[in-house]
């Protein structure tokens, strides 16, 4: 009788642990992959403004270049701080690689003065790019 109970204990413990570990790793990898999709391009310190009437973004052009402008006027491209000179170089390279019709996405903080954006826009026009888009939140507030 007591032996039988012992056997049942054994059966209980047979829930596959290696499979469980597999699931844990799978979950970790899934979340890591889905979380870091746009992180590199987008600056966390930029607080976008609202534009409830803009068209929703369905597909993003993979060639597009994103320029972040913080409230104090500092610019970042893919996570690194950039001055006007480096921005111009990045844009020149992008235009050289994939043509002058690539969209330039400006993610500017809502409180940044337009004078800072003007400098970036001048750098864009200097590299003969012309498709400029301002990113905003489609949030009705």
């Amino acid at each position, binding site marked *: 009788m007591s032996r039988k109970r*012992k056997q049942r*204990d*054994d059966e209980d*413990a*047979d*829930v596959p*642990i290696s499979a*469980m*570990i597999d*699931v*844990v790793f799978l*979950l*970790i990898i899934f*979340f890591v992959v889905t*979380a870091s999709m746009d992180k590199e391009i987008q600056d966390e310190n930029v607080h*976008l*403004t*609202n*534009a*409830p*009437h*803009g*068209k*929703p*973004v369905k597909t993003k052009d993979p060639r597009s270049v994103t320029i972040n*402008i913080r*409230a*104090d*006027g500092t610019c970042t491209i893919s996570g690194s701080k950039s001055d006007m000179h480096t921005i111009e170089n990045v844009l020149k390279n992008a235009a050289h690689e994939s043509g002058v019709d690539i*969209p330039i*996405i400006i993610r*500017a*903080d*809502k*409180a*940044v*003065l*337009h*004078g*800072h*954006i*003007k400098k970036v*826009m*001048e750098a*864009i*026009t*200097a590299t*003969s790019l*012309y*498709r*400029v*888009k*301002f*990113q*905003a*939140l*489609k*949030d009705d507030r």
Partner: protein
Amino acid sequence: MAKKQRKRMQVEEAEVPLSSMIDVVFLLLIYFIVTQKPIVEETLLSCDLPSPGGKPPKEKPTLLTLEVIRMHRNLAPTDPKELNTFYLNQIKMTYDQVKQQLQAIAASDPKQTVIINCGPNAAHQKLVKALDLCAEVGLKNLNVVNDESLPFDPSLGKR
């Protein structure tokens, strides 16, 4: 003897703590759910830039100029009062008045070009508000021009 010992070892092996493993799984799940940002829908407002070295557009009677300039230097750049005043063809208007005018214009000619003349001391929010207004009434030919006549004062943004 050997058989008995092996059996005990098997039982010990199977005692890897399952319930704590499940705890870890749930902990991870909850951690990732909590840390994940809510999905916010984003929008892109496009506009045209003047060609490099191009001359400023000549004044035509059909040209529509919406001026986005800093009105109140002593208020914060994103103050609601500051964001509410625009100049449409050099006439001072509130946001609602501009909206009415643009709606009337868009109804007669949706291809009307709007030149958005943005001053350097205006907040970006104000420019986006103007672009959003044009998108709302259905005007698509938008040109953003930088107002060169006004001096840029970076200290105005820190208020």
